[in-house]
């Protein structure tokens, strides 16, 4: 068997920074397992341009000199075993079942190519970090900071676009406050998002008063939020020109819709995030990868950044509610399955000979 060891990091297929988070975790996994990382965001990426291109390379510099085509060698052994040289470019629609994708097996595999297409945070990988590794003894956030600095290099034209916007709208106009508020399809993921969003105004006003904020850079996927902030903060408000959807619209969120210029979709979110990281202060959503990314792009003084979370009491209450709802769903699904497929339960078996 050939001796080469690769970690193929495929697109997870969710939001932009969620996919970058996946990449970061897997880059750490590649370091820990002495594998050469190869990133491939195929057509399943929401930010892909075409079937032929690797969407990661549209926005960032590659992390190694290898491409997915170097891994298409019939002699290679692949893990998980569903993969082979002929099919590694496909998206496995059943990956969400996590079959053969537990972290331990992936970390200990001796295959030439381990394919990673499901998301793991850095946190569960901490147990695999040996004492002589640079990340040993660090918190997950510190490790992310290290990984972002080490691996995430923007394409020069995107960097230039960010710089142009910064110079035209924000440079020497500080102190600057970046604010990230989610609406749109985030209501699917975050219960009580509206309640969380109500905390922003008070916190912004506190920052304005305490630190003498002169410009507020608003990052949001919602048209209504822009209007509301324009009314309240007037000329203090700065925002980029990007596509936004309606509040609570779960189906037409900007990142789920096609763009005529497909690369632009990724550039919009990158530009906003990097601009936020250029601000002096930042207020964000603790359940959003965009806010996490802004936090991970630079070393913020502790008082200069706040991400909103629910409190633990509410979290526990919601968890109980979620468990009850899930329990009901399971019972309902089981009953439906029994009535729809009686032959699997020893009922009317039309399938037996």
């Amino acid at each position, binding site marked *: 068997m050939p001796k080469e060891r690769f970690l193929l990091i495929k697109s997870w297929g969710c939001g932009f920074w969620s996919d970058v988070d996946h990449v970061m975790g897997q880059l750490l996994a590649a370091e820990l397992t002495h594998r050469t990382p190869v990133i491939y965001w195929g057509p399943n990426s929401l930010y892909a341009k075409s*079937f032929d291109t690797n969407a990661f390379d549209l926005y960032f510099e590659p992390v190694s000199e290898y491409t997915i085509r170097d891994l298409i060698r019939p002699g290679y052994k692949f893990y998980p075993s569903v993969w082979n*040289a*002929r099919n590694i470019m496909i998206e496995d629609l059943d990956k*969400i079942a996590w079959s053969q994708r537990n972290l331990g097996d992936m970390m200990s595999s001796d295959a030439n190519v381990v394919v990673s297409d499901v998301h793991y945070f850095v946190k569960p990988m901490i147990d695999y970090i040996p004492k002589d590794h640079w990340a040993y003894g660090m918190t997950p956030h510190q490790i992310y900071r290290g990984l972002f600095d080490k691996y995430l290099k923007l394409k020069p034209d995107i960097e230039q676009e960010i710089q142009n916007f910064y110079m035209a709208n924000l440079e020497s106009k500080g102190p600057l406050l970046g604010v990230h508020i989610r609406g749109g399809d985030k209501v699917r993921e975050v219960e009580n998002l509206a309640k969380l969003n109500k905390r922003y105004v008070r916190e912004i006003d506190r920052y304005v008063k305490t630190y003498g904020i002169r410009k507020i850079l608003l990052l949001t996927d919602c048209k209504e939020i822009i209007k509301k902030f324009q009314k309240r903060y007037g000329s203090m408000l700065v925002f980029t020109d990007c596509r936004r959807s309606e509040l609570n619209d779960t189906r037409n969120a900007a990142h789920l819709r096609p763009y005529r210029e497909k690369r632009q979709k990724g550039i919009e979110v990158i530009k906003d995030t990097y601009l936020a990281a250029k601000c002096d202060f930042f207020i964000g959503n603790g359940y959003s990868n965009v806010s996490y990314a802004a936090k991970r792009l630079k070393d913020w003084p502790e008082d200069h950044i706040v991400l909103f979370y629910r409190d633990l009491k509410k979290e526990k209450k919601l968890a109980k509610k979620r468990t009850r709802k899930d329990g009901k769903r399971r019972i309902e699904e089981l009953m439906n*399955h029994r009535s729809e497929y009686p032959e*699997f339960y020893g009922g009317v078996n*039309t399938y037996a000979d």
Partner: protein
Amino acid sequence: MPTNRFLFIKAIGHSIWADVDHAICQVFAAELTGRIPIVFWGMESMYSASMDVNSFELFFQPVSDCTLEDALKPEFTYFPPNWEYGNVLAEDTDKLKMKNRSLKQLMESDANVVVSDVYYPLRAMLPWVKSGHWAYGKTPVQIYRTLFSRCLKLRPEIKREIRKYMNTHPDFRDERPIIGVHVRENAIVNEVAQLYDLNEFYKPRIWDFIVRYNARHIFLITDSKKMFREYKKLYGKNGLLMYTDSKKELFRPRIMTCLLDYPNKRHKGVELEKDTIEIIKDTYLAAQCDFFIGNGYSNLSNTVMRLKDWPETNIRLLY
């Protein structure tokens, strides 16, 4: 005859009979271009079972003796040129741009493997039929008939399922004539500057067949619980209406990965196989009926028409 010319026929990702139609048309294209056809329904198919399964073969027998290993080799040339050994099983999300996919290019390519992932109707291939070929001078429906008889072979266990329905429903076997009816929930037609509901045309036709030919039963296929209830109310007396246990549900399009919840809500596994077999069973049973009324815009209804030589008076596809 050994050859290194193949036509690799992928799923177009629509309903089962739309994908079968595509496969059959491409088998015909393979015949016209001297290629060996291989039908492979991978992850792009709505019927895909898993990564390593050819879902076409879950329901039908292969259309040729060639295996995937025979047809896909690293040293082969591929057409359209975006394909290569490493990506030929993936879905080209840009395929509808039709780059390098004109029928002429596909038919005249000299690559070892031509990959077919866009639909061309059988009618479009007629200019390539030479005199002396069995299809020369035939209409598309006649060609479909031959191709369906020759190339579309059900797996034995599905044939058994169909037989079983007939054995367990003596009325279907013994009380003839039977009118097969396929009704879709969404039957709004909006072509030729008109807008109308095709479903309004069914009942007079059914009545016509009943009184003219003394039909004893109606065998109903539908994708709608609402239509099912309506037909049951109208024709459900004295065992007039017959139907199978197939799901009365609309075709479910694919859900984006980012919108999938855990656990995996993809329609797959034994449930997918069972539900699809039910659709196939319905279709083949409709073809066993003496009369048929269907929706001319539906692939299922068109398949019923292509599965047997219907006397002209016995079948009505509504348009």
